[in-house]
């Protein structure tokens, strides 16, 4: 069977399966990215807090999660939540291993990992703000939330955008690891396809091309957003 027929949309073509799997990859990566943003905001806020305990928590969170392989974290979340669910299940009389939902645990795992990177990005973005502006805002009598909404957020978002784009690319590529816990995303679908057709190269190369397409499109989107966020600013260099 030729390549075009194999990846086509005909009766024995795998085109629609691969496209559906691509959608799943985008879905799980977006969820992970969103969770990561939440963790990143929490982490960055904690790192700026006056409490030493919170600062230490934020810094050990970023150090640990950036130093441990993502695959290991995915295993922890998958097997951890599975044994938790099995434990709860055994209370209600079911016995044996109940596996955790792969989408949820996978998204959570890459969310927690990317949150560590996101913390660093957001922290850097806030640190890049002009201190005088914050003092000026305070001097005007702005409360914390008003100051955050009017002064900090708009400018920090602009500074953070390139780094956030990097983290998105990272999350997208990490999402391939969720295939090891059985979620049928692009990587898993390619495995299934190559298993039943014995054409692994065609499938993995197609998967690679689809990943490349997503990273390219989202990269362009982030570049546009960056350019848009910079409008009205004079560039020094």
């Amino acid at each position, binding site marked *: 069977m030729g390549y075009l027929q194999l990846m086509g949309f005909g009766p024995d073509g795998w085109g629609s399966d691969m496209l559906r799997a691509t959608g799943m990859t985008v879905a799980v990566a977006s969820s992970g990215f969103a969770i990561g943003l939440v963790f990143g905001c929490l982490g960055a806020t904690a790192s700026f807090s006056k409490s030493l305990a919170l600062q230490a928590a934020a810094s050990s969170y970023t150090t640990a999660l950036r130093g441990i392989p*993502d695959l290991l974290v995915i295993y922890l979340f998958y097997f951890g939540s599975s044994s938790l669910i099995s434990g709860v299940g055994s209370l209600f009389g079911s016995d044996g291993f109940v596996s955790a939902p792969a989408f949820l645990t996978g998204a959570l795992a890459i969310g927690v990992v990317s949150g560590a990177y996101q913390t660093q990005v957001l922290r850097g973005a806030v640190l890049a703000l002009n201190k005088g502006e914050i003092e000026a805002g305070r001097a005007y009598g702005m409360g914390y939330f008003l100051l955050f909404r009017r002064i900090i957020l708009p400018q920090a978002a602009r500074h953070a955008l390139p780094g956030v784009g990097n983290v998105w*690319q990272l999350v997208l590529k990490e999402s391939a690891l969720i*295939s090891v816990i059985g979620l049928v995303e692009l990587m898993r679908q390619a495995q299934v396809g190559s298993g039943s057709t014995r054409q692994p190269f065609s499938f*993995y190369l197609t998967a690679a091309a689809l990943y490349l397409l997503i990273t390219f499109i989202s990269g362009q989107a982030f570049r546009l957003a960056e350019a848009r966020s910079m409008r009205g600013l004079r560039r020094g260099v």
Partner: protein
Amino acid sequence: MPFDPLFLWQTFIALLAGIPLALKLAVFSIAVGTVLAFSLALMRVSRRWWLDFPARFYIFSFRGTPLLVQIYIIYYGLSQFPGLRHSLLWPFLREAYWCALAALALNTAAYSAEIMRGGLLSVPAGQIEAARACGMARVLVFRRIIIPQAIRQMLPGYSNEVILMVKSTSLASTITLMEITGMAAKLISETYRPVEVFACAGAIYLTMNFIAARLFALIEWSLWPERRKTRGPVDLADQKGELHV
């Protein structure tokens, strides 16, 4: 789940056996990847489109796809071609170890090439002009002026890349290699005690990465005398922390 120091200790000892393989993968792939990356970086700054373009394409495709897909293409994918299966390369391509090594090296080459390019471009044009004006030949300029400064510039980024590579060796476990993560996954499925096993494996990775980061801080300290403070290499480690993906 009761706290069980004995189990933790046994797990830790069992996982230690995975370190040599992980280190071998990391060191060799970084060594090969660095050589490749240097050629790619030279191609990128060559100002000749027929050198620049292939390097650009290589970097784009390896940085735009997951490492896992690269590993699978090399390990599972290449077997699709009967020609390759009967070639001299097959004894290597059949082995998961060589495939993982190749994939890791090709992958890190793409990332390191961009780091090196940044380092090369950071050398001020005035210095290169001055060296040329002093009568230095291109190769001498490269050796005396560009390389020493480029290396210093790229060290923080390169140290991040090395840490990422140590982490990336964990993917070798997906093609049956029993390094630290592979052993951890096996232990988890045997004992159903994911938290303890994870803690042990995580501690090993953190230690390895900590040592790598300190080594690079030390190199940076020794190569950058004017930035040295009185307290020694510990200070420099805090200056990086930029994101490299």
